[in-house]
């Protein structure tokens, strides 16, 4: 099913190497079948490593499936769960972002993405914005995260090692521009977006309505925050609801890197280049010019007004 394309990423002619290769593992998890999904992840992590990827990104809740309802508590992992240890071990060959339900010590359940590298969990993002409207019911079952943080992505297999600052936004987090702003202010080069976006809206154009929205959002954020946006959506059906895939990488000028994926399972490799990031930030120096002092002052003023 998964065919890593013989990507130009595998043969580097740039020295010193300033690229990384990111694999998007667009899969359809088995709903509530943690064991089967862990096995599948291990296979795909192996495929990504063999294909020369430095990072493999899986969709939101890739280890469990999305519409879990009462399965939330039954599929939850902890950072010390054997499944997490297994996946972390696999990250010795390639960094990986996997999606799971993460249970806290005080038994709250989060929709989380784990950044795994070199045998360890190096970063955890807990989804902040839990959609609870329309077909979504996340806040019924889940606790919300409370932070957006960028971090140094180890990218251990990249040679020579270069610092890439990464941040994770899970699906609905992306619909709040403040999330991406905070990551940008935190110095992000690479916004990683695992997603489980259900397809709906079939009236206009040849794309699902939600796909059109994500196309606009990912391109806009990439361009405005001059960062790479790596969007990995899932595919398949759960209780009749389709997930539209369309995983893609957008460069810091808002252009697609390669082609977006279709609606089938598969893994695609894309090359991301620090030199392109540098060029974009020279051409469009919004980050340099951003007036954080004004944002802070106005936020303080609004905060006081809202409390009054």
């Amino acid at each position: 099913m998964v065919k890593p394309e013989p990507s130009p990423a595998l043969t580097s002619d740039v020295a010193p190497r300033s690229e990384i290769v990111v694999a998007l593992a667009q899969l359809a998890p088995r709903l509530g079948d943690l064991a089967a999904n862990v096995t599948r992840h291990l296979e795909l992590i192996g495929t990504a490593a063999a294909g020369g990827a430095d990072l493999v990104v899986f969709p939101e809740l890739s280890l469990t499936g999305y519409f879990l309802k009462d399965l939330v508590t039954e599929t939850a992992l902890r950072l010390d769960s054997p499944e997490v240890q297994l996946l972390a071990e696999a990250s010795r060959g390639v960094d990986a972002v996997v999606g799971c339900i993460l249970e806290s010590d005080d038994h709250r359940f989060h929709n989380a993405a784990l950044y795994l590298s070199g045998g360890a969990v190096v970063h955890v993002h807990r989804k902040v914005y839990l959609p609870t409207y329309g077909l979504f019911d996340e806040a019924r079952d889940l606790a919300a995260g409370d932070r957006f943080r960028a971090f140094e992505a180890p990218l251990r297999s990249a040679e020579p090692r270069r610092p890439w600052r990464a941040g994770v936004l899970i699906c609905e987090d992306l619909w709040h521009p403040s999330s991406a702003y905070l990551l940008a202010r935190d110095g992000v080069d690479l916004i990683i977006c695992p997603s489980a976006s259900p397809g709906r809206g079939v009236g206009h154009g040849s794309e699902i309505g939600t796909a059109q929205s994500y196309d606009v959002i990912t391109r806009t954020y990439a361009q405005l925050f001059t960062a790479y946006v790596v969007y990995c959506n899932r595919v398949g059906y759960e209780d009749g609801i389709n997930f539209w895939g369309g995983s893609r990488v957008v460069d810091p000028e808002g252009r697609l890197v390669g082609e977006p994926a279709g609606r089938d399972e598969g893994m695609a490799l894309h090359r991301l280049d620090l030199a392109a990031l540098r060029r974009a930030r020279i051409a469009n120096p919004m980050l340099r010019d951003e007036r954080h002092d004004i944002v802070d002052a106005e936020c303080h003023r609004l905060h006081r007004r809202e409390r009054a």
Partner: protein
Amino acid sequence: MPETADGLSRGDAADALTVDCPLVTEILTGFVREEVRKVGFERGVVGLSGGIDSALTLAVVCRALGPENAIPVIMPYRASSPASERDARLVAAQLGTTPLVMDISPQIDAYFDRNPDADRNRRGNKMARERMSILYDLSLARAALVVGTSNKTELLLGYGTIHGDMAHALNPLGDLYKTQIFALARHLELPAAVIEKAPSADLWEGQSDEDELGFEYAAVDQLLHQMIDERRTRAELHALGFDDAFVKQIHRRVRDSQYKRRPPLIAKLSNRTIDRDFRYPRDWGR
């Protein structure tokens, strides 16, 4: 031309029902393929009436599973229109399938011989439920999932027989209004005879959906789409040119048929009642 505050006109309300047919076909095909195979089946069984909904359903099943795995079943009653069976056979043949034909007259007549005073609604419901029981028998006999043919218009209006044609495992067309069904049927080049004839449940001679309902599909689809999908208020619907009495009538139909669209009510006693606080997806573990 009447329009709402945001400038929507009645013409736009008709356009709003436009669907991207290739995209919808792809999603529905994937839906049938995945939801059938996920539960360990390879085949689908479809009751084929000679009408447009079942023809389109069969076309989707054929695309999803292959014609060799699609089992159309034609179940005429002796009073059914011969044109229905002819059209059903035409559809089955065009799609490369071999239909089963089962005359339901003996089992219907056996029952109503003992209940001769039954009106045509009772007879119609009974026929729909006999057909359902045949499809579910074949489901077991042929290891095939029952694929239903209900569309969004009839589901919202409650224009179907509960535990009859409304009973099935999968409903690929359930989120498409009748107007959209016509567009998709044309896109998939179903026989003109099936697309062009007046829709009918064919439960009694000369029955026509639009006569029986008292309005045209084109009108009610526009109203339902604006009322349900676009969440327009009564005032906005009025501004769009929909007759107030029509709006009221349709709203009442939707409300009063809600029971048909829900599983049976369970009297709550424990802390974990099925479908209330015992909440698992149907695709649990799949």
